């Protein structure tokens, strides 16, 4: 583990290697803490930044993403016992989205596993997990180190992102397939690029040494000027990720390591992530509990909702009927989707109402100049993701 040299008692939040650049571009001084770092919530306006994600190229500072290096002879069996997916199927230079559970089959966190070199993997997650990762290592010949501070990370996302990276000089970037990892030179700097992201759009994530951070940022800004490049904060990203149907920890689920009340934990089956659970790969933590849950069927499920009207159903309780007699769940994330032109939400809904196509009613509260109004809106359970453009997967991506 790396020891942070920052005097934390004087400055509880660290600055990322991109901080000075972000500070210079921030017009509204809107910063928020994320995993021990200060990060930008909004640079200019959320709308402007959001439309850059869907129409141009955006830079988002991912450095606070917690990163662990997993290496050693047992790295693969270790990861396979940790996560619900079969990591043996992950080829070199590929990335897999994974979740890991506690013994009860309840989600601790989600994240991505990078297979970097034979025997070496990287886990990227939103929250620190070292104690769980180390306890999971009991009996395995494996090394686990947190490398968050050693790796600066930048998400480059949007329809023109491939073109921007090409202009930056990353030769052959257009050949990189979704979830593939490539290694590129940028001047003297070495960049690891994965075609991954949290926007559901065409996009890449750049991983580099912290010393290279500012040079890369400046290079991208120059290369992207004619392609509408813009730095974005977490608010705009949040709208994009809801459209893409991605889950956010502590918003759409609470880690089973943090819940206190019973019944607040969520299993991957409940979160609609059953496709990530491989019962045929051998044992993994939570397998026995998840098997039982499979047999009994999940009691609730996270689904997409298409809601009547244009008022986002923030925190709305859900009912079987417009009279609000029987409560059957609640909304976890809600937005008016600017691209889909739909009023969408992610929600936890009890069985059997989570079936695709079923109708539920959302109790939406509206604040109209300090007068609260209540609106019972019809909502339908629909497919996720709400927005998944062709360009997300197209290889090579279109030229701009």
């Amino acid at each position, binding site marked *: 583990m790396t020891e942070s040299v920052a005097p934390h008692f004087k400055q509880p939040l660290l600055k990322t290697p991109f901080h000075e650049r972000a500070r210079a571009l921030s017009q509204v001084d809107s910063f928020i803490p994320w995993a021990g770092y200060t990060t930008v919530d909004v640079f200019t306006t959320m709308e402007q930044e959001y439309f850059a994600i869907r129409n141009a190229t955006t830079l988002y500072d991912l450095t606070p993403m917690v990163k662990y290096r997993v290496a050693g002879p047992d790295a693969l069996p270790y990861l396979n016992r940790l996560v619900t997916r079969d990591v043996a199927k992950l080829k070199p230079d590929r990335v897999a989205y994974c979740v890991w559970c506690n*013994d009860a089959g309840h989600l601790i966190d989600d994240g991505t596993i990078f297979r970097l070199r034979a025997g070496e993997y990287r886990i990227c997650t939103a929250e620190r997990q070292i104690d769980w990762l180390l*306890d999971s290592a*009991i*009996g395995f010949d494996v090394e686990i180190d947190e490398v968050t501070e050693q790796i600066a990370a930048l998400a480059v996302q949007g329809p023109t992102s491939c073109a921007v990276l090409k202009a930056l000089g990353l030769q052959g970037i257009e050949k990189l397939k979704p979830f593939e990892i490539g290694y590129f030179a940028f001047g003297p700097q070495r960049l690891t690029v994965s075609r991954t992201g949290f926007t559901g759009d065409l996009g890449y994530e750049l991983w580099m040494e912290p010393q290279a951070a500012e040079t890369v940022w400046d290079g991208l800004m120059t290369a992207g000027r004619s392609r509408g490049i813009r730095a974005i904060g977490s608010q705009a990203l949040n709208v994009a990720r809801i459209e893409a149907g991605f889950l956010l920890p502590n918003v759409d689920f609470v880690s089973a390591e943090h819940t206190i009340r019973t019944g607040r934990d969520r299993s991957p089956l409940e979160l609609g992530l059953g496709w990530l659970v491989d019962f045929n790969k*051998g044992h993994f933590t939570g*397998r026995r509990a998840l098997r039982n849950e499979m047999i009994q069927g999940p009691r609730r499920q996270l689904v997409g909702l298409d809601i009547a009207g244009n008022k986002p159903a923030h925190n709305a309780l859900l009912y079987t009927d417009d009279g609000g007699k029987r409560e059957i769940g609640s909304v976890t994330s809600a937005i008016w989707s600017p691209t889909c032109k739909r009023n969408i939400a992610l929600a936890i809904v009890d069985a059997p109402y989570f079936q695709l196509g079923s109708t539920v009613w959302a109790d939406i509260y509206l604040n109209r100049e300090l007068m609260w109004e209540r609106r019972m809106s019809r909502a339908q359970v629909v497919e996720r993701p709400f927005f998944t453009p062709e360009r997300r997967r197209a290889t090579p991506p279109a030229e701009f």
Partner: protein
Amino acid sequence: MATASPQARYDCVIIGAGHNGLVCAATLARGGRSVLVLEAAAQVGGAAVTREFAPGFRVSAGAHLLHLMPADLLRELKLESHGLEWAAQGMATTVLVPGGARLSLGAEEAGRGLSPEDAEAYSVYTARMRRFAAALVPMFSRVPPRLGTSAWADRIALLRLGWQVRKLGRRDMRELLRIGGMNVYDLLEENFDSAALKGALGLDAVLGANFGPRSPGTVLTLLYRLAGEFAAGASGPSQPRGGLGAFCDALAKAAAAAGATIRTGAPVASIRVEADRAAGVVLESGENIDAPCVISNADPKTTFLRLLGPRYLDTGFVRRVNHIRARGLAAKLHLALNRVPVFSGVSEAGVRGRLLLAASLQHIEHAYNHAKYGEFSAAPVMEITVPTANDPTLAPVGQHVLSAIVQYAPYALKEGWQSGRQRCLDAALDGLERYAPGLRASIVAAELLTPADMEAQFGMAGGHWHHGDLAFDQFLMVRPVPGAAQYRTPLDGLFLCGAGCHPGGGVMGIAGRNAAQEVLKVSQNSA
């Protein structure tokens, strides 16, 4: 499969022929199961064995007294018809008092050597403690309830436990609840004046435990020991002829007579898993044995972390197993003597009983202080027997054996046992010499088994008496850990039957019998 001889398939395979494994085997065989017991050592018995430690001198190398073995279990297994003989039963306890005065706690002489006040207090105290112990007795022979389930069987079991306590009546119940979480030091200080009496009673609370008399929870461990003795229904400590090993030989004969096969010198390397259930075992020799039911007499850490392996278990469960406190603190001293030992002020009859060396509660607590910091006690406390006084077959004619449990000797001695062993042995001998002047001169051979030695010889993790501390947080329905406290484990077809389970260690066989009953129940349901 490597070897598929017709005998290579059994209903049940038991890993370990400790006394619990043997009781389990006998019970299962009597229940109609085909049973194979695989023992790593050359002889059966685990930590209850007799072996030669010097030419011509034999001793019970681990446990040396039987005081917890239920009489009904002895009858059920007809051990006397399988060769069990008693060298001594209902052995008295004598407290070694500096200066040679004498205090007896045995059945007949109870209270001799006490002031009238202490004698009176002692009889009130023993009567009360016996009532409390009796209330706990029904817990022993039952599978502990699971917590937090909605199953009626679990709720009823919890209610029954509550009812037992309630039945004591208001005064006793209040007293039990008051003292239940106390330390034994305070309890004894409340009751008695005599330092020797308090030392002796305090020693019983910490024998084999990772505690000093001032440690929290020591009243519980004392009550628990008393309840075990009470449940046994025996008249007091006893000594089988030929030592505890002979007792286990009789158990093995009973198991064999019921149809079980026992193989010694057959260490198990791993538990085999197929389709997420136990499917048999692989021996260190590479031999494969199939069985739909594998029962481990090895301690929980060995069973889960080494024989099964974390990759078949969930992280949270492994974390709990890894946290089981199982570092032994009891060493065993064996002396070969060329004459009968003479303890100042102790009669010949006293030497045939149990001798306690714990001058006072302070003495025990000071001895424990060393252990807290990774040192052995400079002046250890001891439970001493002279087995040859009751059973001359253990030594050449006219010569004797002394067997003592010596506390405290930490498993992970800071200086290491390489250099520590001789110094620890000297400390024990110095302590004995004070009460038995001239003993040193009569020593023909001496052996000190440290917890590390016992781990190596008996295969018990940490060399721990109970395969894991017996304390509030490793007790009853959380023993050894939640998820494995009903003899079943998270892996279907794998069971535990040793001292690491409820009701814990000591040679009592209840864990073995309870486990067998659970196995019979499970395999009946699935048949």
